[in-house]
């Protein structure tokens, strides 16, 4: 890949992609319509693929380009498609009606989590003047927000999206720290995530058959 991106453009593109990641994470927290959340997740996949693509262009690495394409296919194509299919079979109830923490407080919590992510990653940021390293707190914030979605949303599908947000964040941290996760590892992780989604889709289907709803709090009986 002979095309070298200029420094200023590189930084701007990187920041755009990172900003897209964070913005979509917050949007996923804000919206209640499940179909909208899935669309937001797809947009985040696009941002992640863009992030990897920018890094690939910067380093001129063919392997990273392949990874970017892979991310694009899995996170913009396959996973949202699977989620939409799960949603289509889930009947009329398509809204996250009653989250454990209401939306306003959730947005405040997201702000607090972002601050925490910035505070925690200070030593990392100080290590190097690289712009990629400076974007690590954003990725970390996405991980925390994803975890928060996982904890506070009741519907199985929105929890699933929370899990996938976390995974997006973790992937972003991996690429930004430049540890150079190999292609094989990335392929393995992608396969894992797809499998998890498939399994959870089956689980959601079974839950609906049994309880008529996919509120995870119906699973209270499962204890000793």
């Amino acid at each position: 890949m002979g095309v070298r991106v200029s420094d200023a453009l590189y930084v701007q593109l990187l920041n755009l992609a990172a900003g897209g990641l964070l913005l979509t994470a917050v949007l996923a927290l804000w919206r209640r319509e499940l179909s909208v959340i899935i669309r937001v997740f797809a947009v985040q996949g696009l941002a992640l693929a863009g992030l990897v693509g920018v890094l690939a262009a910067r380093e001129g690495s063919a392997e990273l380009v392949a990874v970017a394409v892979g991310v694009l296919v899995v996170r913009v194509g396959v996973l949202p498609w699977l989620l939409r299919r799960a949603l289509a079979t889930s009947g009329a109830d398509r809204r996250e009606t009653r989250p454990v923490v209401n939306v306003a407080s959730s947005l405040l919590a997201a702000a607090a989590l972002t601050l925490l992510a910035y505070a925690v990653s200070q030593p990392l940021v100080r290590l190097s003047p690289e712009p990629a390293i400076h974007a690590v707190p954003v990725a970390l914030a996405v991980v925390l927000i994803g975890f928060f979605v996982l904890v506070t949303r009741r519907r199985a599908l929105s929890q699933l999206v929370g899990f996938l947000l976390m995974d997006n964040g973790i992937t972003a941290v991996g690429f930004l720290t430049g540890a150079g996760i190999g292609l094989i590892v990335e392929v393995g992780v992608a396969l894992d995530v797809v499998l998890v989604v498939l399994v959870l889709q089956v689980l959601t289907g079974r839950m609906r058959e049994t309880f008529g709803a996919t509120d995870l709090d119906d699973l209270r009986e499962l204890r000793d």
Partner: protein
Amino acid sequence: MNLVALGLGAAAGAGVASALMGLLVPRPARAAAVGLGSAVTGAAGVLAGIAAMTGQTWSMAAPELLPIAGVFLEVDALGGLFLAVAGAVAAVAAIYGIGYSRHHADGRAPQAVLPLFVLTLLIVPIAASVGTFLVCWELMALTSLLLVLTEHRRRAQVGEAGRWYAIMTHLGFMAILIGLLVFTAQAADDTFPALRAAAATLSPAVAGLVFLMILVGFGSKAGVLPLHAWLPRAHPEAPSHVSALMSAAMVNAGVYGIVRVGFDLLGGGARWWWLVVLLLGALSAVYGILQAAMSTDVKRLLGYSTTENMGLVLVGVGASGLFASAGNTVLAALAMAAALLHVCNHAAFKTLLFLAAGSVLHATGSRDLDALGGLRRGMPATTAAFGLGALAASALPPGTAFVSEWLLLQSLIQGLPNAGIATSIVLPVAVAAVALTAGLAVATFVKAFGVGFLARPRSDAAANAAESPATMLAGMGLAGVACVALALVPGLALPLIGRVAGGIAGTQTAPATGALTIELAEVTGTLSPFLLTVALLAAAVLVVVALRVAAARPRRQEARLWDCGAGPMSARMEYTATSFAEPLQRVFDNVVQPVQDVDVTHYQESRYLVQAVEYRRQIPDRIERRFYEPVLLAVARWGRAGRRLATGSVHRYLGYGFYTLCALLIALVVMR
């Protein structure tokens, strides 16, 4: 040609080959193939061990074999002794196992695991780095656990015994792990030479901590009080040849660990260490044999007897450490030689006894002494084997245990003149404990043999018992030969053991010399077990002849035994194991605290006529009740408290993770 390398190579090859045979060979030939292979493994181990005891050494370093830790092996005289003992027990038990396994232990899993267990028994004493040692130790525990569980489908108690064993052995492993890791942290790396070099720089507190931790861990493996609870459970429930392997070979690994780390790696250490060892040993010996004397389950009795004998060994080890810390190396070597000889003797007679008990179990399906009796007619060879084993175990002159216990008593008594205050209190107590143990052991084994094998059968199974197959008799025969050899000419083994003991205590003087007559070095003491036996036999013959002559004078008259007019004597009128132990139980009433229940039913017509008497007696393990129950209750309470955290809500579980993560991150930010 290095015999050690040859033997170990052969053992490794044969062991792995027999494990594969256990997996691949079809059922009819499986037990025979695995048994022969394991016997070869054991015999090769004996060869390597004896070669190492005569002074050959061998070492191997393969740092790349295990990730991070590497594999380091080294055979020295001490390791060689335990290698030889484990190999000998394994060879005998494996031959016996050919016939015994056909019963219901010839599945693929137990047959493939048996050779692996034998291999780990052989490797533990020659491991030369903490990593290698711990891996082998854990493998030994795992393989033996699998073997204990062989019959879990047939009897529910096996599962419970397995759980006890698994938990206790892993707690012990944790203690050893902590001790050895604390030690390793002070050394350059985890090989034994590096630990030896670091021992001198340890502070007394750290060295004491290391020693206490490994004492707990190795003590639990040796079945020493108060960590013995698994032993009388797990050993009886295993198939009998595995019981023999565990009770005669695996428990020795505990003694080996204490001697290796205490003497060799830590280099002796403080006096209080060895006082603790000695007192624990004395307590275990007395308590173990007392419980054995009360027991009516023959294999449980043998299990408790293992606790007793390991206690005696630890008395010797502790005395040796005491003498060494006082600078008396020759006496230290004598006490250590007594302990190590007792390890060999115990291995020989405990193998024989467990194999004979297994033969009874094989023929009658019962381990309950109260349901046996009269086996002499149906199973003469097994009866002879158990009788020989009982004699060997009971510390009376022609017996095997007598020689080592005599040596032990000699060393304890000779240590008295130049002892400090603590020592001069402890040593006489130890002498008394050893003497009491010897006396109770006689009663125990008279009970086991007399009630179990002589008189008339108390059940149909015992009456119809038939002799076991030839391979089982061959195994018992080999163990019996070893018992007789060690009893009559201990001079065969004693010079080698004396060399090992001298090496540990740091002296060139052999503590005991002589082939037929044992003579002690630097103290006055001689014993000739062979001549003693000849004299005893001569006296016995003389008495018998004299009685015959005297009794022949008035003519004998045959008459019916007086039976109170209650009809012919039945088997129910015999002494049972319970009634035989009853006087002892009365004497030690305060110690064993039996739970008794007598129900007398009278005829309705008259209060003076008894219709039936029902007597139940239980002897709960008191230490278990006092020591384990509070712990178990506390754990259960903790578990109940923990249940309140688990409400079943997925959100709550996820929340635990989320809040913990956030708290950790915040702590990281604030504390940095």
